[in-house]
């Protein structure tokens, strides 16, 4: 009979309509009201169609959600380096950025002119950013992360949409909040909550101390027990200082050579 198929289809539409209210009756309206029933509404097991009443309710985005990146800085109440940048201005993020929306000015020591591992300026043009997440993925220092704050609309693109370092910087604490499991994973990979470079320095210091202890233990115990480890530690420090000075001298020489070469080319 003509029309039978249509009637069958309409029956399904009707069932959908009813389904939506079955749950309403079962949960007596709580499904919309309280936080506890939100996952029930959203799960694959839910029957009927449910919408989310944005902006009165918003779906909390998953950890891996990526929106315009931010720069990680040390917590502002950090005991040693409050507000210190994690970024070392190594230049990997502007290289891997597909739309080339990251600009970095590498930091320089005002006296010597040598590069220091800290950006002097950092810009992201959020109009260009395509939210691909490469910068966060390839950053070797966990210093740039994708944000979860997607409400960035503004009235003037020319003044508001180039984010500078102040606007981009967010505390490490914030990253721990929005991505708890990933922050822990990264911490484990780094070996601690501190920046990679800080870890390295700490490890070096720890090694020096351990070395000192070891030599102390090997030494036959004579009367002057306390002075020796202190002297050892001091000499280890001195060694480290010396090595550092040597490294700097070498780099200085290399830079001088480079400058000379460039001058030669120009001449």
């Amino acid at each position, binding site marked *: 009979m003509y029309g039978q198929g*249509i009637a069958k289809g309409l029956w399904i539409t009707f069932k959908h309509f009813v389904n939506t209210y079955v749950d309403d009756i079962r949960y007596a309206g709580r499904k919309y009201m309280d936080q506890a029933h939100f996952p029930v509404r959203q799960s694959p097991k839910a029957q009927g169609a449910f919408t989310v009443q944005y902006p009165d309710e918003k779906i*909390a985005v998953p950890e891996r959600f990526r929106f315009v990146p931010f720069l990680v800085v040390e917590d502002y109440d950090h005991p040693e380096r409050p507000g210190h940048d994690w970024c070392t201005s190594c230049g990997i993020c502007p290289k891997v950025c597909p739309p080339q929306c990251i600009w970095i000015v590498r930091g320089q020591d005002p006296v010597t002119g040598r590069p220091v591992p800290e950006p002097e300026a950092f810009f992201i*043009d959020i109009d260009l950013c*395509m939210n691909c997440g490469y910068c966060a993925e390839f950053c070797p220092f966990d210093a740039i992360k994708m944000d979860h704050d997607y409400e960035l609309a503004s009235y003037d693109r020319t003044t508001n949409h180039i984010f500078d370092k102040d606007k981009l910087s967010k505390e490490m604490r914030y990253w721990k*909040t929005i991505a708890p499991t990933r922050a822990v994973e990264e911490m484990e990979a780094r070996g601690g909550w501190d920046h990679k470079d800080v870890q390295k320095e700490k490890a070096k210091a720890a090694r020096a101390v351990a070395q000192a202890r070891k030599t102390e233990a090997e030494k036959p115990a004579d009367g002057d027990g306390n002075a020796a480890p202190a002297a050892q530690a001091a000499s280890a420090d001195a060694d480290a200082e010396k090595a550092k000075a040597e490294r700097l001298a070498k780099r200085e020489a290399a830079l001088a050579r480079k400058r000379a070469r460039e001058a030669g080319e120009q001449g």
Partner: protein
Amino acid sequence: MAIAVPQTTKLNLSETLDWLKQRYPDAVKDDERQGFSGVIVDKNRLREVAQVIRDELGFDYLSSATAVDYFGISNHMEMVYHAYRTSGGPALVFKAQTDRENAEIPSLIDVWPGVDFQEREAYDLYGIRFPGHPNLKRILMWDGFNGHPMRKDWKEAYYEEEHKPFDSRWPSGWVHRAEERNIYGKNVRYPDDIDLSRLSDTSEATLYAGLGLGVDVHELDTDGIRTDRLVVNMGPHHPSTHGVFRMIVTLNGETIETLEPVMGYLHRNHEKIGERNSFLHNIPFTDRLDYLSSMGNNFGYVLAVEKLLAQGARYTPPTYRVEVIRVLMAELTRIVNHLWSLGFLLNDLGAFFTPMLYANNEREKILDFFEAVAGSRLMCNYMRFGGVFADIPERMYGVAHLINDRVRDFDTMEYLTDMITERLPRFFDEFERLLVGNEILRDRTIGVGVLPYDLAIALSTCGPLLRGSGVPYDVRRAEPYSIYPELDFDIPVGKNGDIYDRFMVRIQEMRESVRILKQLLPRLEATKGEDVVTKVGHTPRVPIGEAYGRVENPKGELGFYVVSEGDEKGPQNPWRYHVRAPSFINLTALGPMCVGHKVADVVTILGSIDIVLGETDR
């Protein structure tokens, strides 16, 4: 009926090439460049050789035809053709070379009519002329555009540097806008012979020419009504086109006599951008092609580059878990895409938004999964060379941090299992009951927009459009990639090649996808803990050579033709990056399918092809 099939159609690829070289010793030569394959055919005898390749060797399906500009390397241009047998097997790659100054290669439109749009594209973007092509005019750029943008010496607007990364970004990257600093500015140039003061718009004239207007009215005189043809522009903003796409339709009464698709309104020269990019940069750009199935696009591109990488020394192929995850994503994408396309096809038919929203309800659930795994619902950017971005997380949950944020928390595997084993099959049953018996739907779709078997192959159509016409051609079976050979699934085909068959093929394909997904769940459990993150860094050393990677995307065969050629710094960027876009090539069949039907049917026929303008216009 016994058709005499020449024995040569059963030769394998190397035998085929030998046979061809033996038959044409002076016209066919091996491509001996490092990393390249196939043969180079003398362009003066290309037509003849192509005919033999199709008829005697059985390569009846021309998948891709594209141009490459070797400016600065060997200073010639070449057309690269990939022909396949519809019975399956690898591609026969043949090339024809021409010089850049007076680029001319004979058209193959008589041999494979499906080359139509692809030759027009090569003419438009590279300036190669194809004698023998009946309608050779620009297809993506506008008429009156000066120059051919894909040529290596052409610079686009706001051009900064030949390749990314740009030097101005680091180490002294003071921010600037491209439009403030650039010598190339908007880069609008006019041909020399144009007097701007007397400029008149002639672009439409070339479009309308040859549409058969202004005929003697007696010619069309039926039933005593004297009438002329009427030209109707459907689009570019017609809601049925799902984007900006225009069809110029010539009508005799209500009946369509000719239909000409006009595209390029969303053209952004994706391929030129791709050549400026590094290999890695391109992955998120592929998301923006067919933005409904970005996982599939990633997959195709990654496969192409992995083929190149595999020729190099230090490359470890992806682990088994990576392959499982990739196929999982590809099949979920297929369901996502088909739900969307079927929903909108019903919208086009007048079943306004109810079925579409039912379909979307399910689609949202899959997108939630994508968001938790890849970080984004549509622009997934998930696959990497030799791996994926990250493993599937244990739990899908978010942390409330904006005002009014509501938290969800699901176990990922449980969520997936619920979706695959219960929710989706239940929905497909329901969707079929909702619509398949519907008399209005049947009246509107059965026998409408018929694409016959042989025409479907000749026009190089692909995907559900090709299979709806009864050709069981699916890249997952014809030239299997990833772990598809070990999975158990069928290729649904239609019988009549009308809209209804395409509709049913899509529903069946979703069921087959669910069948595949069910087989993947135990594999996912078994490979838990395997490494999925790639060892290939952000600047992969891609060896010199060419590769064509293709996948069965929801819309059809998506191919990426990537050429890696060294400049003085070595191959950091693809020399050529071509997208064989299924939406674009499937449109070749739109005109032939619409002729003889009514205006209202055009909307549904277009809907049944299932195009996305991001991919059509690139």
